[in-house]
């Protein structure tokens, strides 16, 4: 008996028995693995604990959203954009609205633009908080998750106050906002945003100088800037490798150029650098929200375009013309001139792009969504091959992908 335990199996026998190389093992991670955040499947080939090959498999959440756009009116399309990236619905709302507004040539009033900026930044906080909580829990820091979700709850309550919905808000409309911002919202947002930087300090206290956290994240999942650019990676990952590029600064949209904020960058390009970049981004987003609150202009919350924007209920009941517009927009939708636009914005995950083709009717001819997670996930094999299996968890956690955004 003892002989059996101590005598190694001759290599030739092992090859014959399994038909494979003796030291290679294929491991299927996902699509239901808790740390793959959704339904990502990685086929890993292991040599001991080292990854020798990695093949990502996506598409489990493909719902044909791009096809669905073609049978919906432009306005109905906004609800689809919520469901693409369910952690940053307002970023997608904004990008789609900007694209269609560009086709229409609509001018959006300052109040709507600033409110959009404010809510998109709150969305960024929301998304980064979910990322931080789940990333930390993957690596073993349980309590950070609870703190992050405590603050996220406050943000979701603000969204609910605005739109009646916690997640799928659809609050942005083509031509402005869905509703007048509610009474008392300023105090609500102010209370939250003034306390928020202190909360970020709390997370940092738990993680930034934590030796276990540093041990698990420093020098892990390193990728160079050149590799990332080549593979289509965008967003905080790219900034953590040293590229100072952010669409909010470099190609300002929706009056981002009127706000004062920094673009945090690092040069290490590892998991820890991505963590530091996102933490700093949260502080900067809080700054933007604060500035938006303080300098919020007055005026209309929708564009002056009666053929696109639904009229007030009061006007609809008293004015014939408004009633006609209301009827036309609701039953038929509005016509968008023929043409094509590509609008890119900076979502919490990177570059969201909407490529919208109009053919002069009330429905888009084609809408293509460039989800940042799709581009980012391509880089997984490049990042994990040669590392240990435990580092795969840290690496893919640091990518902050949403599979809905990837598969659409």
């Amino acid at each position: 008996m003892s002989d059996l335990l101590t005598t190694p199996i001759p290599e030739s026998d092992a090859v014959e028995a399994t038909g494979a190389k003796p030291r290679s093992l294929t491991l299927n991670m996902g699509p239901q693995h808790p740390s793959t955040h959704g339904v990502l499947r990685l086929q890993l080939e292991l040599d001991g604990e080292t990854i020798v090959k990695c093949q990502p498999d996506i598409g489990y959440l493909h719902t044909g959203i791009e096809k669905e756009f073609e049978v919906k009116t432009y306005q109905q399309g906004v609800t689809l954009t919520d469901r693409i990236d369910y952690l940053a619905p307002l970023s997608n709302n904004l990008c789609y609205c900007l694209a269609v507004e560009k086709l229409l040539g609509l001018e959006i009033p300052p109040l709507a633009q600033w409110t959009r900026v404010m809510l998109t930044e709150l969305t960024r906080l929301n998304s980064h908080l979910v990322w931080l909580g789940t990333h930390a829990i993957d690596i073993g820091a349980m309590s950070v998750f609870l703190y992050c979700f405590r603050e996220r709850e406050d943000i979701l309550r603000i969204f609910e106050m605005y739109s009646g919905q916690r997640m799928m808000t659809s609050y942005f409309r083509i031509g402005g906002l869905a509703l007048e911002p509610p009474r008392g919202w300023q105090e609500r947002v102010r209370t939250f945003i003034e306390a928020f930087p202190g909360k970020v300090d709390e997370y940092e206290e738990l993680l930034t100088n934590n030796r276990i956290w540093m041990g698990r994240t420093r020098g892990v999942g390193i990728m160079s800037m050149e590799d990332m650019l080549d593979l289509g990676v965008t967003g905080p990952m790219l900034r953590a490798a040293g590229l100072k590029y952010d669409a909010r600064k470099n190609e300002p949209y929706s009056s981002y150029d009127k706000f004062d904020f920094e673009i945090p960058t690092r040069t290490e390009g590892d998991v820890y650098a991505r963590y530091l970049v996102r933490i700093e981004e949260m502080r900067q987003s809080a700054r933007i929200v604060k500035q938006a609150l303080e300098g919020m202009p007055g005026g209309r919350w929708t564009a002056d375009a009666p053929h696109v924007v639904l009229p007030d209920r009061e006007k609809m009941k008293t004015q014939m013309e408004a009633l006609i517009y209301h009827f036309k927009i609701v039953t038929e939708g509005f016509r968008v001139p023929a043409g094509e636009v590509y609008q890119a914005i900076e979502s919490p995950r990177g570059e969201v792009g909407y490529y919208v083709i109009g053919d002069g009717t009330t429905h888009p001819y084609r809408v293509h969504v460039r989800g940042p997670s799709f581009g980012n996930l391509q880089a997984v094999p490049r990042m994990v091959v040669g590392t240990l299996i435990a580092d795969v968890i840290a690496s893919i956690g640091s990518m902050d992908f949403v599979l809905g955004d990837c598969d659409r």
Partner: protein
Amino acid sequence: MLPENLKEHTTAAAVEAFDPSALLAGKLDRGELTIEIAPEKIVSVCGFLKYDLKFVRLSTVTGVDWYPAEPRFEVVYHLHSLDRNERLRVKCRLPGGNPEIDSVTEVWRGANWFERETFDLFGVRFRNHPDPRRIMLPDDWEGHPLRKDYCITGDRV
């Protein structure tokens, strides 16, 4: 064959100077530049755009189906130059019968999944692609859903 208003445009003029036979058309609409390239020249033009004109990023590759018009398919590439903050749309038109085009993965490795997606949803084949499989739909799926003649109501038989 650039329209008059694009003769002065630096990027469009540079592409025309690089290979006059490759550039089929150009358009500047709503501040966005679109150039149409002959499909057989796509790899050499993309190489020029990336290495000489510094369009280092390929944002996305996708398709458009203009059924029943011919040429039926468009393959659309969105490029981005970080240095100049400039975006460019490159298009190739392909026939409906057997849409095939060379893959640009040798220029940008990141084109891999985008081309797989375009193949999956439009049925455009990319020659010399390192991994020409479906990406979103199951491998045994029939048809390409983003084609305009794809049935979206009723039972699938």
